[in-house]
């Protein structure tokens, strides 16, 4: 996973959580057609000064995790295995270090599933990761989840190696 993409996603999620928070108490009666609150063409600026990554930023999280911001699942499964636990513990340590930070766990599925089932499967995976983070002491209120089902693959092949990379839950901290 490349960092510009992650950052974009983070900004996008930030914007969307803000939108959610803003309307949490009162539902908008009407929405204009497709105003595109979460345009994916945002050119987000990394919170970087010179070549220094700001401690406690999403960029810092990604750099510190060295790939452990993502955990992987077997086909149709959502259990947390020992490798996942190691990764999630590393995430939890970082989150404990920055108690003001919130994070979203994105759940994903590979392309070899039906669309709606994969949305539900992504929910399961994101929640499995979230539940583990909570079990090791992270306040549940700091964590949200979202499923993208099979809509956002990172590996583009139609083979087992690609599918294994796409069955994932990615933790993204919110700057």
């Amino acid at each position, binding site marked *: 996973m490349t960092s510009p993409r992650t950052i974009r996603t983070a900004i996008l999620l930030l914007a969307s959580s803000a939108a*959610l928070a803003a309307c949490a108490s009162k539902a908008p009666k009407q929405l204009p*057609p497709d105003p595109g609150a979460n345009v994916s063409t945002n050119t987000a600026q990394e919170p970087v000064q010179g070549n220094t990554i700001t401690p406690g930023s999403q960029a810092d999280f990604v750099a510190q995790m060295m790939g452990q911001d993502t955990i992987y699942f077997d086909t149709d499964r*959502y259990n947390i295995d020992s490798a996942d636990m190691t990764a999630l513990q590393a995430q939890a340590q970082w989150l404990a270090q920055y108690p003001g930070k919130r994070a979203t766990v994105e759940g994903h599925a590979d392309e070899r599933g039906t*669309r*709606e089932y994969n*949305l*539900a499967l992504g929910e399961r*995976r994101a929640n499995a990761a979230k*539940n583990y983070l909570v079990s090791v002491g992270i306040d549940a209120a700091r964590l949200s989840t979202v499923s993208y089902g099979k809509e956002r693959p990172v590996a583009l092949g139609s083979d087992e190696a690609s599918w294994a990379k796409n069955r994932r839950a990615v933790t993204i901290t919110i700057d």
Partner: protein
Amino acid sequence: MNLRLISALALVLAAPAAAQQSLPTPQPTEQVPEEGLSGAVSDDSDWQDLGIAIPAFATDADVPTQTSAGSTAALGMSLARVINDDLKNNGLFKPVGPDALPRPAFGEVQAPAYDTWAGRSAEMLVQGYVRAAAGGQVTVGCYLYDVALKQQLAKAGWTVAPGDWRRAAHKCADMVYSRLSGESPFFDSRIAYIAETGPKDRRMKRLAIMDSDGANHRYLTTGQTTVLTPRYSPDYRSILYLSYFNGSPRIYIYDLESNTQRLLLQSSNAVFAPRWSPDGKWVLYSMAIAGNTDIYKMPAGGGAAVRLTDSPGIDIGGSFSPDGTRIVFESDRGGSQQVYVMNADGSDQRRITFFGGRSATPEWSPRGDQIAFTHIAGNFRIAVMTPEGREMRYLTDSWQDEAPTWAPNGRIIQFFRTTRGSGKAGIWQVDLTGRNERKLATPVDGSDPAWGPLRP
């Protein structure tokens, strides 16, 4: 609709003159090229070999119209072409269209030159006329004759707004199809789907609608937000669909009359897989709470929701039986995706698929006699079975076919097919014999087709 068709037939023209039936004013649409659907047909069953001649519709006076087809004479040619394409592209008959046939005079419409047509080996003859009517409308008459018997089999007429001229052709094709096959009509219907463009990891997905033959195509969303799984309301006034508008999956209702949309329900949880009840009064949706997905039912106009399933597994989707009393849905409570049925109040849930592999995305036929679904065992294939889960038959065999949707008459199924590697998806359709399979010509890639009912 049967009743309305019969009344249209009963009222039919003693002379090609008066209007029998007015169609509602059309919505603004953007026209796509004439072709609509295309595809090869290979079938050899008996009535599908029936030779039908469809010459250009005649007119009493060639005058300009406000239709996209031009003058009444040009419109008469276009009407016959649309009817020919409807019947030919669906593998139903072997029609011969107006471009290869002589054009009957206005006076011949009700007095066919049977011997001429017999000499051309036509067994059936579809003739018609078009006339300019008051207020820019056009009146179209449609007649079906048995050439060997020298007998009129059916006739009907419609007065339509200029933008609805293709509907008159679809209704004529429906009349011919129904009379000759004994099946219910389906051409005069529309399809909602997801138009897809862009690379595999950043696909742009737009809500789009089109006529059953691909014409009158229109995009409803810009693509800035990912949208999925549309469902036309039974009255065609609105579309339920999933949108990531606020960053998380939620269900919206798009109002086609006002071009506005609203959230189906406010929730902090993921809400997806929207479905209408056949009477349009209820909406089924699936909601994930702490990772566990269940199916709920709520009044379409808003109000208290009822939870229908409570298994610890994923319960998702749902499709009502045509009488609204039962729901077929998908659940992995037994360890893998399988198809279950329950009563509309959630009682008496039981599994009906025991075919090996996984069974997903069930859709109840509008006729009630079949359930279409995706069977997964290696390849993803479209299959049908009885509501008891018997007599399973595959209709397709490709790497990944999923999400069947039924034609209004329950004889044809659309689905989407994904190409291995590129991930490109296209909308395909197949009839219940499994033989007449073809890809729909959409402007860009397409997925998640949802076929609406016969238009009111």
